[in-house]
């Protein structure tokens, strides 16, 4: 009950902000923050619950973005349909990739997901209809009724998507699926022996994670009015999606949310005030510091702190 109340509150705050605040920059920045909430939450379903490191975020994200862009170019489909199609395509990729690669453990899976990014980027680079390496210019249609600007509309849409992603992650975490996934993380052999359908659960997690990443990328072409492979399949999405849960805490659905909000806000500030190189540096340093010094992330630190002060 408390979760749904706060989720509703967050979403209504986003709507109210869209109605009151005039400066469009905040919505540009806010969109990115919320997008990373979606990506980090999606990443954590496979990376945090099951313990499989996925560097393939740009593959799922980019496939979602390109699905939406191509669909829009071909049929001028509405935004909702673009998002659904993107989620379906990326979910399908997650399903196929999961079946092929989830038999691999640890670093092998991680490397295989990097391979996925490069292969899909190469395919898109050679696909003339989708603009190839030079990219595709897209003409935004006028925003739908209650919204006066397209960016605000995308911002509210992304807020809804973020709430949905967190709700899905929370559901998975609390159901028998989540228990099975955690059992796999702790010991795959033991889980298999205890009757946990390990491969099926892993593929399920990979599919849901991929679909959410695809949905998170679906509105990117409209957000930029433009899409091109080099920036769409950029490894920086993998970095953000991986670093946020690591910093926030991978154990529960709240960790990636906290991590993503913190990390992408810091990134926005550093990019604007110092430089975009420095922003990647900050992520790298934070990532290393957290995995070494605080393996349970910010949530783990808070838990440790409250436990020691209550004693």
């Amino acid at each position, binding site marked *: 009950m408390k979760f749904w109340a706060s989720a509703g509150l967050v979403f209504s705050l986003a709507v109210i902000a869209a109605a009151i605040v005039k400066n469009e920059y905040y919505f540009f920045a806010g969109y990115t923050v919320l997008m990373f909430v979606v990506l980090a939450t999606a990443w954590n379903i496979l*990376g945090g619950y099951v*313990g499989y*490191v996925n*560097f393939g975020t740009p593959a799922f994200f980019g496939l979602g973005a390109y699905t939406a862009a191509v669909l829009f170019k071909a049929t001028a489909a509405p935004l909702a349909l673009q998002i659904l199609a993107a989620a379906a395509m990326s979910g399908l990729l997650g399903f196929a990739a999961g079946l*092929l*690669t989830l038999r*691999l453990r*640890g*670093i*092998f899976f*991680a*490397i*295989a997901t*990097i*391979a*996925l990014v*490069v*292969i899909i*980027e*190469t*395919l898109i*680079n*050679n696909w003339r209809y989708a603009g190839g*390496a030079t990219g595709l210019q897209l003409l935004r249609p006028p925003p739908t009724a209650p919204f006066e600007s397209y960016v605000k509309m995308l911002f509210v849409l992304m807020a809804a998507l973020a709430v949905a992603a967190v709700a899905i992650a929370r559901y998975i975490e609390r159901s028998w699926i989540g228990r099975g996934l955690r059992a796999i993380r702790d010991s795959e052999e033991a889980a298999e022996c205890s009757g946990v359908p390990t491969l099926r659960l892993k593929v399920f997690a990979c599919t849901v994670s991929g679909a959410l990443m695809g949905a998170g990328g679906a509105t990117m072409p409209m957000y930029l009015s433009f899409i091109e492979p080099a920036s769409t399949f950029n*490894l920086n999405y993998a*970095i953000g999606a*991986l*670093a946020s849960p*690591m910093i926030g805490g*991978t154990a529960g659905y709240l960790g990636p949310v906290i991590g993503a909000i913190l990390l992408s806000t810091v990134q926005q500030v550093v990019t604007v005030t110092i430089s975009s*190189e*420095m922003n*990647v*540096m900050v*992520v*790298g*340093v934070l*990532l*290393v510091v957290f*995995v*070494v010094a605080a*393996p349970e992330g910010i949530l783990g630190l808070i838990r440790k702190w409250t436990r020691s002060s209550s004693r």
Partner: protein
Amino acid sequence: MVFSFDLLLEAVVFGILLGCFYAAVSIGLSVSFGLLDVPHIAHPAIMVFGSYCTFVLGRYGFDPIVAGVVLMPAFFVLGMGVYRFYYEAFERRGSDAGVRGIAFFFGLALIIEVGLILAFGVDQRSVEAAYIGKSLSIGEMRVPLRFLVAFGVALVLMTALTLYLSKTFTGRAIKAVAQDEAALRLMGANPVRIKQWAFGIATAVAALAGALLIIVGPVEPGLDRVYIGRTFSVVVLAGLGSMTGTLAAGLILGISESIVLMHFGASWAPAVSFGLLLIVLGIRPQGLFGR
């Protein structure tokens, strides 16, 4: 597409040169990841760092290969430090070393990459030497001399490392630690110290590989991302830790990449190494010469 035998022959010759070079840049990873099981994603980044050190030394008149050799002791120490840190922070704690260890090396690669951007900018850098820019003509074929030099150094490097691992006491200890750490401990040897030594050697080799990298072509800070695919596909295809396998796998990658490059164009080339990697992982995860 017109099929031409001459073009194929040229692709194969070039692929062999390229393949030896790929084997040389992967052999450090073959030790650190293949033998020691450290998820060393930062290996290509350290190699690119070596290229930049070579570039800096080149300004003071050092030949790139000499510079690479000069850098080896410093990189050896650096590697020992990195392994010690990794061991203390992850391996010794034991819990969840997988996810966090990978994230650690990923973060390290980022820091190196951005550090290089901040220090040198994103422009491509190259070195000068007598053999760079010239090429050797064999009949109709023109082979760039820089590739021949890299080829020679690569062969020397690999022979030396193979001999070291099979003939010397420490080398055999490194192989032993890969096979059975507990047994080694029972024999009275300290596996951590041996691993640290081996990681140092792997990093020193990466310095020389970095020198080869900047000889073969200009480097930029982001180059490590491409080489993650190439080095890992060579090491996995070889079968973890197999030195002869590394050469064979390098040749397979080099030849297939150069054939794709000549027949389909440069835009398809990046997918070759990763495609090969996926195929190997799917069909024969233990590699060609798996242990």
